[in-house]
């Protein structure tokens, strides 16, 4: 593989595992799907170029994951490490696919680039929002292969 565009990214610390609260052990309490839960789904996605997770590169942050369980909405902004990162679409796609595979189907997911963090922000957002293109992308073995690598090797 060619030299990554951003050869020396700043590495951030991973957040701790979510603590299990007593009410989560209580079957009578409803645990709403919240920001942290969705963040936990995407933070371990691997960057396509670095041997680091999106969380470690600060591409995804918990504060930029907004979940409304009652309205079935998930909004995520991600921040490419550099403003002309050609991998931005791929990263967005990986986030989308991860959520497609793990979130209940009732959710409407929006994945966008953090405003001001990419030169082709608008074009990429439009591509990521086009469900038809996303669906077609997932039938492309090459892309699927790369995304699968982003989503991690064999699940534990």
């Amino acid at each position: 593989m060619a030299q990554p565009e951003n050869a020396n990214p700043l590495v951030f610390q991973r957040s701790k595992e979510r603590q299990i609260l007593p009410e989560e052990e209580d079957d009578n309490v409803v645990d709403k799907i919240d920001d942290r839960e969705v963040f936990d789904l995407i933070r371990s996605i691997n960057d396509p170029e670095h041997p680091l997770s999106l969380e470690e590169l600060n591409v995804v942050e918990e504060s930029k994951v907004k979940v409304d369980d009652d309205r079935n909405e998930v909004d995520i902004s991600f921040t490419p490490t550099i403003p002309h990162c050609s991998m931005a679409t791929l990263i967005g796609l990986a986030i989308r696919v991860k959520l497609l595979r793990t979130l209940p189907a009732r959710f409407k997911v929006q994945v966008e680039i953090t405003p001001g963090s990419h030169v082709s922000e608008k074009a990429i957002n439009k591509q990521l929002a086009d469900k038809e293109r996303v669906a077609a992308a997932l039938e492309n073995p090459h892309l699927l292969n790369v995304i699968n690598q982003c989503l991690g090797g064999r699940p534990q």
Partner: protein
Amino acid sequence: MFNSFPGGEMTQQICNKIFHEIQNQTLSQKDRYTTYSIFLNLLTYHLADLQPLGDTFVCGYVQLMDGEKDPRNLMAAFRCSRLICQYFSLGTMVEDMFEVNACYFPVDFVPPPNDPHGITRDDLRLALQHVMSATPLFAQYCYPLLLEKMSSDVQSAKVDALKTLFSKELQGLSSQLKAIKCLEKCLKQEMASLLQYEVRSHVSEEIVHFSLEAITAITKELSKDSLQLAAYLTENKADIDIFLNIKEKIIDFCHKLLENQNTELQVLGIRGLGALSLWSDILSVQEVTAAMEKLTVEAVQTESDAASVSLLVASVVDKIQAEHASKIFLNILQASDTDMLLIPVTAALSTILASSHLTTQHLTVDIVPDMLSWLRSKCKEWPDQKQHIHEKVLTNLADGLRLAILSQDKSVQQHLSADVYGLVTSSMPMLTELGGGPCGDVIAKDESWTQQLLLWLPGMALYSVDVYTRLQACKCEAAVVNMMLAGPILDGLLISLQNKISSCLDKGSLSHLRSASLTLLTWLTKAVVVRGHKSAFDLTEVLLSALQDKYLALQAAESFNIILAPFDDVLCTAVQANVIPTYQQRFVVQTLPKLVVGFHDALPDNKEYYLMAVAGMLMNIPHQVMTTELPEVMPLLVSSLKGGKCELHKQALAAISLGIQHMPELLTAYLSDILNDCLRLAVSGGNMKLRILALKCLQQVSSLPNVALQPYKSEVLKGVKPALDDRKRLVRREAMAVSAVIIWKKVIRFLAVKQATSENLNNAVLNDC
């Protein structure tokens, strides 16, 4: 676009042109953004071409960015600044570069309502923080600035300064000598007084909280870099005093927090001291000890929260001498009027006892006698029915005692055991736990002790009003029986016990007596099974017959698990019990077929108890035994997923999971049933633990390299969907894992097929160019 840009001299020419001919400040916001984008591109792709420009470039950039106001542009500008600081030697421009960025600190920005750009104050703050921490050269300007802002009247400025001060990046800075020096100054001049001021005036919990966080972070950082610190201190002897001064200020400060009436602040103080005690290379042993004493005394007096104390206690146990520590803790126990500290302090004592740092002399003369005498007096105050706290205290001490005694040689063991048993027998019924494991062999070989114990233990096991005491008596009895020499005395004892139990088990007895005698039977059986005694057969028969009894069946079913499960406090090699290596195998081979027959003969309502017994046994048997027995019981397990009760489902699922793990090949025959039942339980199981177990089982089945699974994949994927939306987060997590495994397998298969047909689509679907 920039990828085709040739770079080289052209890069420098572009920069010089921009610097000389463009007055950035006069451009529109959009155009200024373009300027920053150009620099960001150049810095990223053509850094090597830029670096020779050195100061000229830095100077040009500083002038260009000066006065920028737009938040979007600032985000880009800060990114440029960070790169410049990281990759250029700033030379004479250090201060200018710092100033042109740091003038935005603390960030003062409120996004307009309906802001389409979504940049927040926090985004800007973080971006700026990255710049300020981008080079150690900034430390000399950074700390004074932060200190200044910390004494600001504006709350948000204070918080920002503190946040920045203990940000991860800035801590990294402190590994530099200069930064350490700066930190010291900062601590000396401002921090301590500031903090004292804040505490006194109750200005803001948030401020105090961040301050303490900052102190803890700095303390940790300093102790991590103690080598550098030591080197530094040797070089700058004059600073040592200053340094010690700071140290004392922090200690003082923590002490002040402890004396505060506000519990939250006390907790902060305890944490602070805890952090200090980690600073072991810097604080002397005496100082840590003194801090500890101070802390524990305060803790006792103020009834501080136990969790914090135990946190602290755990963090210092390794740091101070075991003898000294054990004394402190015993003192606390003796001085404390409340129960609040009992658990953490006894846990700490237990840790010290188990650490084998204590001399025999100290153990036999001071610690054990003192501890026992404290217990003796204490247990008189406790109620007949123990509460959780009492049980926990006894368990803590028993664990410590057991390990301490076992670490000594035989004669000392005997001596200490006698002490313990002396207490147990004289202060019963409270203290049976102490007698359980530790020194069964010592006692069992001493006939007078045995006689004495055997006189009262069964009585206590059957008749004590306290459940916990009953259980401990059973364990104690089992330990003694296990260790007694084989022969007529033991045989006689077992026969009389069995008779006694049988009569108590009789349907005519009171229900709690029946239950108690079944517990005793279970432990006695375990004791003889473990040592391979012939009476195991008869006792097991009694247990098996209890499975037919409606009232006792559930407890009897569970007892099979107890018999095979390893315990670390009793009837195990660790406590030098009499254990033969093949006891599990023997017991299973003997008992499992009887359970299978019993299952077929049992009334429909009772079948589940046999299954539970089977499942309980499977949980504890070695692989070898499993492979011979599993084909026999698998049909029972699978069928038990159909009807029955939640508890049975759980047991069966756990056993099936285990079975699959040992013999994956066995799965194929039951695949369809297991998948369907697991999916049903995963989605509609009435109990979350059950749903989780079902999903775990599915995960396990799905991850097997089993071709037979192929046709079921879509079905499982579909079936597990509702569980992805389960009301419980822990269930959802397992459901996602199932989905992940199956999708992963599907994708791999898809990719393999595509590769085989060597399909090649070059254009990425999402991109147009």
